[in-house]
């Protein structure tokens, strides 16, 4: 059934269909629409789930750590400061191998206060052991959230479904909502591999000496690697049932491209328009959309980009002093490939500034007309800032 939904509502519909049993969240713009709807579903009985209205994001994730360890399916959603506050427990959830699913609406971090989109919040959590899936439109948000539960529960790692603030979270689009029966076939009830159980008393997360800790960490890293293949299988099955798939990465006209854009999130949609316009003018250009950020799909990235001359990475984020985070990933994926393309890093759209077709075209020509990337990152559209008061 098709309905016109916000990106936020697409998340909520997926969580309803996934039959999450414990939901815990704390309000933060722009994530609030997700949990408002879920709150309503829990109150009205449309969902058979407990909604915990906790006093902070830290407690929201802590409560899910307790609930998931007790053997039920869980969900939370947050943004920006909220995700930063959860940081300690992001590590905990992954270390405890809990298949928690979270929707993370990308929002800039303060100060100054900025509620608009920016990927630095989620990308800064890259080393916590969470699988991260970046979405382009509302349909993808719904599909990815359902897939996230399968993936999380198969590899025993938490998954973050990431969507841009407002451009995606608050934009209405037609979305195909799958039948509950079909979803039940794709996503059967959660069967925990381990849980708190008075009939089988065990200790979870206890003190562990150097004799064992390293193996536990090695297992997490292996599970991450496994997640790339498992994601492919899950998408395959999802495609059979619902006729939609996205790929860990999506290569658009990359085969004969001299210059390839690397994008993520909603910038990809804008870039698709630019691609068409440039192709119409005979430019050999492609797009590599990166959906799966952790685990890093390095092989897929180097396969798609390997034959190009230049790569232009669009980063709506910045690791201060090191540049765009996707650009770093792309460089790392390509570095051992003989004769690999030149990598140009562009920082654009920080704190919700528009990334327009004009800006992307400018990036294209900048890349084409340059022989070598002189800097590892170029900030696009930086204005001269005049200060209101001047010292005499």
């Amino acid at each position: 059934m098709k309905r016109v939904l916000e990106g936020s509502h697409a998340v909520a519909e997926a969580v309803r269909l996934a039959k999450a049993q414990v939901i815990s969240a704390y309000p933060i713009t722009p994530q609030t629409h997700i949990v408002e709807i879920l709150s309503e579903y829990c109150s009205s009985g449309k969902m058979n789930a407990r909604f915990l209205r906790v006093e902070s994001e830290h407690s929201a994730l802590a409560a899910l750590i307790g609930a998931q360890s007790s053997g039920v399916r869980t969900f939370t959603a947050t943004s920006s400061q909220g995700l930063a506050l959860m940081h300690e427990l992001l590590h905990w959830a992954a270390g405890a191998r809990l298949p928690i699913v979270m929707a993370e609406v990308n929002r800039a971090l303060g100060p100054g206060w900025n509620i608009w989109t920016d990927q630095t919040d989620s990308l800064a959590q890259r080393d916590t052991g969470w699988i991260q899936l970046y979405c382009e439109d509302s349909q993808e948000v719904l599909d990815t959230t359902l897939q996230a539960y399968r993936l999380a529960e198969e590899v025993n790692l938490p998954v973050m479904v990431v969507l841009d603030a407002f451009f995606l979270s608050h934009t209405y689009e037609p979305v195909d909502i799958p039948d509950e029966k079909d979803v039940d076939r794709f996503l059967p009830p959660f069967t925990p591999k381990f849980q708190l159980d008075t009939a089988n008393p065990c200790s979870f997360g206890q003190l562990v000496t150097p004799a064992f800790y390293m193996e536990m960490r090695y297992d997490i890293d292996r599970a991450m690697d496994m997640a790339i293949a498992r994601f492919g299988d899950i998408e395959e099955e999802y495609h059979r049932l619902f006729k939609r798939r996205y790929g860990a990465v999506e290569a658009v006209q990359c085969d004969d491209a001299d210059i390839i854009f690397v994008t993520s999130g909603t910038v990809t949609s804008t870039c698709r328009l630019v691609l068409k316009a440039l192709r119409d003018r005979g430019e050999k250009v492609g797009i590599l959309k990166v959906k799966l950020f952790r685990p890093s799909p390095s092989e897929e990235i180097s396969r798609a980009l390997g034959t190009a001359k230049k790569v232009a990475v669009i980063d709506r984020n910045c690791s201060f002093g090191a540049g765009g985070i996707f650009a770093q990933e792309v460089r790392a994926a390509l570095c051992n490939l003989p004769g690999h393309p030149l990598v140009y890093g562009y920082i654009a759209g920080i704190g919700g500034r528009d990334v327009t077709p004009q800006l992307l075209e400018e990036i294209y020509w900048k890349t084409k007309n340059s022989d070598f990337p002189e800097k590892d990152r170029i900030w696009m559209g930086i204005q001269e800032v005049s200060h209101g008061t001047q010292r005499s």
Partner: protein
Amino acid sequence: MELNVPDQEFMYSGHVGCPGCGAAIAMRFFLKALGDKTIMVLPACCWSVIAGPYPQSTLKIPLIHSAFETGGAVASGVRAALDMKGDRETTVVTWAGDGGTFDIGFQALSGAVERNEDFIYVCYDNEAYMNTGIQRSSSTPYGAWTTTTPGADWKKLRKKNIVEALVAHRIPYAATANIAFPEDLVRKAQKAKSIKGSRFIHVYASCPTGWRIPSEMSIKIARMAVQTNIFPLYEVEDGIRYTINYKPKEYLVREYFKLQGRFRHLTDRDLDQIQEMVNEDWDLLLRKAGEHA
């Protein structure tokens, strides 16, 4: 003397607490009272270590270790999951130290109690951050030396009254208990188990290592804390009905202070001042219980 406490044991040999550890004694009696249908949440505290390292555990109940400040929240999640699974029989207990309760975990505890989450929160109080090596907490009493209140910088602030803070939430049940009064402790644990909603028990748990006392003095000091009115035994129902469980013969606090290395630096004048503070707190409690002379 035969104690009127259940025979069942859920704490076994092999724990790694210090000799005379009050927290270990408290755990043993609590689990006897609560029984096998108990799931425990254990935020960072001495007990994170006392329970023993992987792959062994001294406790024969399901146990989830958790981050320092999460005692109230993790328990809320466990309870919610059990409810969803239709398990109304199992008791969820958070077992936290004073740091995890009075300080870093206070927000999550307050949140859980405001929501009236159905669980028991036990704070075993050894009056400082003992696991990290005796640093002051907001539970450290007036007059105490710790490694972060050394020398002339001994703590000159009152101990936070955690029970009153919980009572202000109109919590269904709040009580103090003490390892030197095991029957009272077991009764309170069982009573807490029979009540729905949030329940809080504040347990006095001596720490020979941190208090600079011989390990064999652990129980004696704990008993004196009650006998001097420093740690009165009482219960509060629904945040209003106070019951004082033990009326001591009002021993002088200096007897209690003189036995502990952590108070060695205090002068007679300091002890007189502390005596006044204890008297004042006791009078206040009597008034709340409607027993003021």
